[in-house]
């Protein structure tokens, strides 16, 4: 038997809030592995999915992950993020599957209304095609409830019908930590291990774990155009138009997604520590400061989720 603990040590040391969130996320990942026969983990190279990968390491090492990584590529991603994605998968020695919206366009299953339309919402189609192709019965994603008001309503194990649709008015009861991942063929579970994390929790965890991120998460100089209270980056895909006032600004991304719908914020935070300080005192929410697609309507996210979006 081991020696008794020294008298000064607390009998039951409380886990701090990050320890607790980490333990919950590991538990959720293992439930997916234990209950589902063919899951996949969505990995985009963004900060939330980078955190997911670290949690998966904690959950399954020294074993391999019991699922492949899956990225639905809109073809409109920042190259730094794609490079990071590939490097990280390689470093972890895990299988990465990439399916692209452009292939769905070539097949004709995705049709754009206009050439410069954001491909963000069309990811749902490509995702459902990938689910069908590989027969995935569960997809693990890095969505957080604090991101958006419809996400705030979603279960940790969210049932999706054959069309990938979410029915917010009729969700499965989710009691205690007894997650129910049972589905019939064709149906699907979306599992969200970091549901209960906030943006600040994510950054604090990145700092604690010393996680590497794509460089665009930190302050850098970039040409941008002000669009209302958002900054539209000037890129090949989103060139400046006549009359636009292009400014070179010190910015960073709070979230990385499709180039056409993700805006950076003005910032000189060039370290994780500085980003945490900014995040703790910001007055604008993550999506509010950065998403060109959610501003369209009050229920944009809910609508997309009903159609199969993450």
């Amino acid at each position, binding site marked *: 038997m081991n020696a008794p603990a020294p008298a000064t040590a607390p009998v039951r040391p409380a886990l701090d809030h990050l320890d607790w969130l980490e333990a919950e996320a590991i538990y959720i990942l293992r439930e997916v592995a234990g209950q589902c026969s063919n899951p996949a983990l969505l990995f985009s190279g963004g900060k939330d999915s980078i955190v997911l990968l670290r949690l998966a390491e904690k959950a399954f090492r*020294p074993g391999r992950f019991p699922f492949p990584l899956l990225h639905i590529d809109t073809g409109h991603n920042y190259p730094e993020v794609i490079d990071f994605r590939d490097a990280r998968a390689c470093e972890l020695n895990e299988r990465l599957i990439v399916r692209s919206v452009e292939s769905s366009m070539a097949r004709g299953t995705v049709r754009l209304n206009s050439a410069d339309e954001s491909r963000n919402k069309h990811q749902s189609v490509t995702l459902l095609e990938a689910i069908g192709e590989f027969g995935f019965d569960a997809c693990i994603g890095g969505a957080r409830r604090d991101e958006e008001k*419809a996400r705030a309503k979603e279960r940790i194990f969210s049932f999706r019908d054959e069309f990938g649709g979410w029915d*917010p008015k009729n969700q*499965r009861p989710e009691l205690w930590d007894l997650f129910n991942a049972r589905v019939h063929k064709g149906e699907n579970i979306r599992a969200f291990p970091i549901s209960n994390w906030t943006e*600040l929790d994510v950054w604090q965890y990145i700092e604690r774990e010393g996680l590497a991120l794509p460089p665009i998460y930190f302050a850098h100089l970039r040409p941008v155009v002000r669009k209302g209270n958002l900054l539209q980056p000037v890129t090949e895909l989103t060139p400046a138009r006549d009359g636009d006032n292009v400014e070179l600004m010190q910015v960073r991304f709070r979230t990385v997604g499709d180039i056409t719908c993700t805006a950076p914020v003005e910032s000189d935070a060039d370290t994780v520590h500085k980003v945490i*300080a900014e995040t703790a005192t910001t007055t604008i929410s993550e999506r509010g400061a950065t998403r060109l697609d959610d501003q369209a309507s009050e229920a944009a996210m809910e609508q997309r989720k009903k159609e199969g979006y993450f």
Partner: protein
Amino acid sequence: MSAFEHIPEFGSPVDSGLLRFLTCGSVDDGKSTLIGRLLYDTKAILADTLHAIEKTSLRRGMEAVDLSLLTDGLQAEREQGITIDVAYRYFSTGTRKYIIADAPGHEQYTRNMVTAASTANLAIILIDARKGVLTQTRRHSYLAHLVGIPHLVVAVNKMDLVGYDRTVFERIRGEYLEFARQLGIEDVRFIPLSALNGDMLVDRGDNLGWYDGPTLIDILESAPAAHSESDERFRFPVQYVCRPQKADDPLLHDYRGFMGRVESGEIAVGDEVVVLPSERRSRIKDIQVGGRSLSRAVAEQSVTLLLEDEIDISRGDMIVRGDAKELCPGASAPGTVSTRTALVTRRIDAMLCWLGDSPLDARRKYVIRQTTRDARALLDGIAYRLDINSLQQVPAEGIGMNDIARVAFKLAQPLVVDRYAENRATGAFIVIDESTNNTVGAGMIL
């Protein structure tokens, strides 16, 4: 998220950990407004979110900002001004992180309230000062008590609509205490407030001078965190077995890690353990997280256990301590032997909340999931149904949606259970209907 008080040092542990609470009570008592106001007063609402709900409030013809829009995020909820499903919200005070669940008040959505309650450690039960204790107040109080929420706070809301009259508060308090006594609820506190005006949430306000108790936020800040109250017996349901297939790595060749979360108690390297239901014994050889070794693991930690001996263990098995005082092999029926017993059983007595749209069918087999284990189950009798108004036990032929009943189930495979009153993690189960795969019942083992 902006911090309420400045976060003392970034990255430093939040020392009082985390508290999960929910708001519940009858329809329109002001649950969502209360949460909105709490977030607003703790400066946890960001400017753009506030701006968005201001716009929505205006468009809907309201004069002031409707703070309930913060949690009522679904289109259907906003259209009807009601809550349909739980919303989760987060804020931090610098000393504590909070996970708030806003439960719906409508009876139709009781199952969503149970979802919110099952993980909470404190419940705020709202009562409309004009209406007093209603059936739904009783139902939610009973459910909160049944799922073992140790701390109840009764918030008598809308005090502004009764002229902040102390006698109204005292009358409701008396009425509720009578009801609580019948249920055996011990830890209940009362607070008068106006969620709309923010009286007694974070600020005391000027209208409730006669009340000298703590504000709502003070109650939340000082409520004990869950882990400090949980069972001390070690319970480790195995979620997943790790067998790295790396023949070339001699260190991993014989590696067999049992992955799971410590649901209660703690364990250290060298401790003797028993695996249930097989009753095989071994000792803890190593405790790991992500391949790194620890000397011990405590409640709520997710770890991997390695044992000295090669024994057959798979998902659904439970690892407990070998000490006699934590384990009493041979005992067979729950509740009959020592209270400090982990029990392997093929029959359970339980309180059951039925959540399914269609009634419990006594002829059909259901799946019961308890910890990480599944067993097929058949109803083996209904002792009674609980009448929520009178708290009377009434005889029942069947059980329908939102009913609460005492039942027994026969099981095709054994489960390893504790009484729910002693261990929320090992005493809880859900009932799954295999034809729809839906979760149709929530059970608490007696």
